[in-house]
């Protein structure tokens, strides 16, 4: 008894001392980010955080003049909805947090944003393409990227324009991959592309048994809804088994690691294409400076969605400023900021001109079809843009 008790008392006393040592902080406004900073998607997730950080460092000057200190509070959602929601509760519980930029995975954003919605906290999403994100009509939730229902359809239309008559659709059994694959399927059927099969798999390495029926059905195009780390392996194994047709994937394929895995086989046959809502740097007028700044600050090329995170944070700062001005210099409320985000029109961001509709979608979002043109991972950002489209969200 005695030993345990004394150790507990000691520990408590030490903690109490440590707590009293952490003093009160100066009056600040925090912008939180949530993205996967660990795990398989951490490369993209970390750069979402870094994009936001860069925006705060570069653009918070005018708010500093108003007497506010803007801080970044990065959270790691691990790509897991449970962690995301727990973090969300932590975020909304902090009154200093006035905007949350975030989430990479729609499967995390959807449950977590219920917390933001009920707390009235504005959430600007740089990367969540699932239709449900905005279809719930929450005032607090806006996004500056396209939607899967459009992106899937864009993919199908592209396949059609390339003369594809039949398709086999695979997805990764995640909220994101399955969703976009369903939209690709729907549009394909509408356009008259024969869907030879539709299957999901959690398999990451051994695609043998899935590939046999695919190859037997000889589709013109194999569509993969999901992330590059599965897609590239699947594509590689399909080629090795003698498939000559076209590969098509989605914005989850947008990572230079895809060529690291797939290599030369992605260029063989009818080639590899992917649709995305976040085009390469060359697609945007204002990105050259962003990329240079990003490289100088973090020492590496920005991953996809870093620019979107930058723009999301820029929007957040603008909204905070507007709300602060209308409240006469006092700290703005969350509700006022949520409204201010939606009130922004024709903001010239580095990823395009941003105005929101009543649901929180962009009035017009950009979609790209990109062709993989080099087996060298370093050349990934120089992949060829096969198509650029500006499409309004569905009503």
């Amino acid at each position, binding site marked *: 008894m005695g030993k345990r008790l004394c150790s507990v008392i000691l520990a408590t006393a030490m903690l109490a001392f440590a707590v009293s040592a952490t003093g009160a902080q100066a009056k600040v406004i925090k912008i939180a980010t949530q993205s996967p900073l660990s795990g*398989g998607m951490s490369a993209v997730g970390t750069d979402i955080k870094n994009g936001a950080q860069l925006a705060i460092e570069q653009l918070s000057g005018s708010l500093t003049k108003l007497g506010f200190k803007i801080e970044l509070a990065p959270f790691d959602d691990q790509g897991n909805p449970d962690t995301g929601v727990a973090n969300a509760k932590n975020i909304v519980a902090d009154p200093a947090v006035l905007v949350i930029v975030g989430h990479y995975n729609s499967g995390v954003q959807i449950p977590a944003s219920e917390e933001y919605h009920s707390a009235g906290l504005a959430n600007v999403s740089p990367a969540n393409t699932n239709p449900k994100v905005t279809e719930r009509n929450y005032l607090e939730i806006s996004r500056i990227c396209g939607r899967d229902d459009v992106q899937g359809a864009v993919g199908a239309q592209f396949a059609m324009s390339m003369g594809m008559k039949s398709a086999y659709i695979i997805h990764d059994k995640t909220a994101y991959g399955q969703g976009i694959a369903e939209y690709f399927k729907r549009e394909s059927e509408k356009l008259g592309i024969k869907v*030879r099969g539709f299957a999901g798999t959690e398999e990451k*390495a*051994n695609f043998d048994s899935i590939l046999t029926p695919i190859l037997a059905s000889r589709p013109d195009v194999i569509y993969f809804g999901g992330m590059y780390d599965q897609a590239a392996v699947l594509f590689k194994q399909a080629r090795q*088994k003698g498939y000559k047709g076209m590969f098509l994937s989605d914005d989850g394929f947008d990572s230079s690691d895809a060529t690291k895995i797939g290599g030369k086989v992605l260029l063989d046959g009818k080639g590899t294409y992917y649709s995305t809502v976040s085009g390469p740097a060359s697609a945007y007028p204002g990105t050259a400076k962003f990329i240079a700044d990003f490289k100088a600050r973090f020492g590496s090329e920005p991953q996809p969605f870093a620019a979107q995170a930058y723009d999301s944070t820029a929007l957040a700062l603008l909204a905070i400023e507007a709300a602060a001005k209308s409240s006469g210099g006092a700290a703005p409320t969350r509700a006022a900021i949520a409204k201010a985000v939606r009130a922004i029109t024709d903001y010239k961001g580095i990823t395009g001109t941003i105005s929101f509709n009543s649901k929180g979608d962009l009035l017009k979002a950009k979609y790209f079809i990109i062709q993989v043109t080099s087996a060298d991972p370093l050349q990934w950002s120089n992949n060829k843009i096969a198509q650029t489209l500006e499409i309004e969200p569905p009503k």
Partner: protein
Amino acid sequence: MRIAQLPVSVREIVKPIGRMVVFVVGAGAVFSAFMVLLALVFKGSAADRLLLESMDVGILPYTVSILPQVLIDGVTLGFVYAAIALGYTMVYGVLEFINFAHSEIFAIGAFAGVEFLLFMERLGILAGAGPLFAYMLLMMAVLAGMMASGATAVIVERTAYRPLRGAPRIVPLISAIGVSFVLQDLIRLVESLTSGQFHRIFPTFGNFDDRVSLFAFEMKMGTVYVDIQVKSIVVIVAAVLMLAGLNYIVNATRVGKAIRAVAQDRSSASLMGVYVNGIISFTFLLGGALGGAAGVLYALKFTRIDPFIGFFPGMKAFTAAVLGGIGNLTGALLGGIVLGMLESFAGAYLTTFTMGAMGAEYKDIIAFAILILILIFRPSGLLGEQVSQKA
């Protein structure tokens, strides 16, 4: 019996290879016959009509046309499972203990082999390797995997299992689960610290990606080519060699005799002068090395590895060991082949026969369901006699 007249050493090499041929042919014949029968039953059904409409081919010709490919894939996978299953079964035979961390030992082997090849690639040796040299490099990679895995297995046994020998069965099992998790994160730590990424890609070299055309036959839907990848052949040959080698060690050498003695009765073996701890370590070394080699072969076949890659193959291999009768080397082999075929067949045909309602995503469920059913209805497995009986 001619085979009985051969000297022990030769017999113990010929016998397992003969068994493997029998198992492969037997399992393949049973599965194929079942599939064709099923296709006959389904003729004219909704599934048949759907296939005719979407692909312009009936269910029977479709089934037949992909059958050879499915069999080849199944055999390849089966040998990978069998090689991993041997590790479980060896340890179980000797200690009556499920080495839960064996799946991570397998993963370590895969990483060691791939890292070795990546190192060679950085040195520039890989790119210009001729065919013979490529095979030598692969062999060296397999050896690297075997050494890493064997060493890990021995260290794990020494640190996490030996102190618990004699404790209730549940205690070392929990420890083994813990080790499995620790190893996963350790692999990830090491791999991600060196490159920021924790998955690795098996480098492309040699002629492993080439395909050997076996035969072709005409069907209404067009010519069906059946071919096999060079790397599948490599995997099968390597697995056969390893299995035969292991069988030889266990059944025809002095140390093998000691292993069997310890498995049967540890204390008596000790009284007879067998160094029990040494033999147990050796068992782990052997099982681990086999797992490591299987890991490298797995990486060769499926290209991409990550620290968590061991879990499913490990579970499947365990299922294979149980299916064949755990503790029984021949059983592990049979279990592996049957399970590999089953998975391959389920993955390839389920979608067609259920009209897309179920598909390849059910192959894990089927494997686990088999594990559960076998344990309920025939815990001794296909070849075992009683659960408590050892190899």
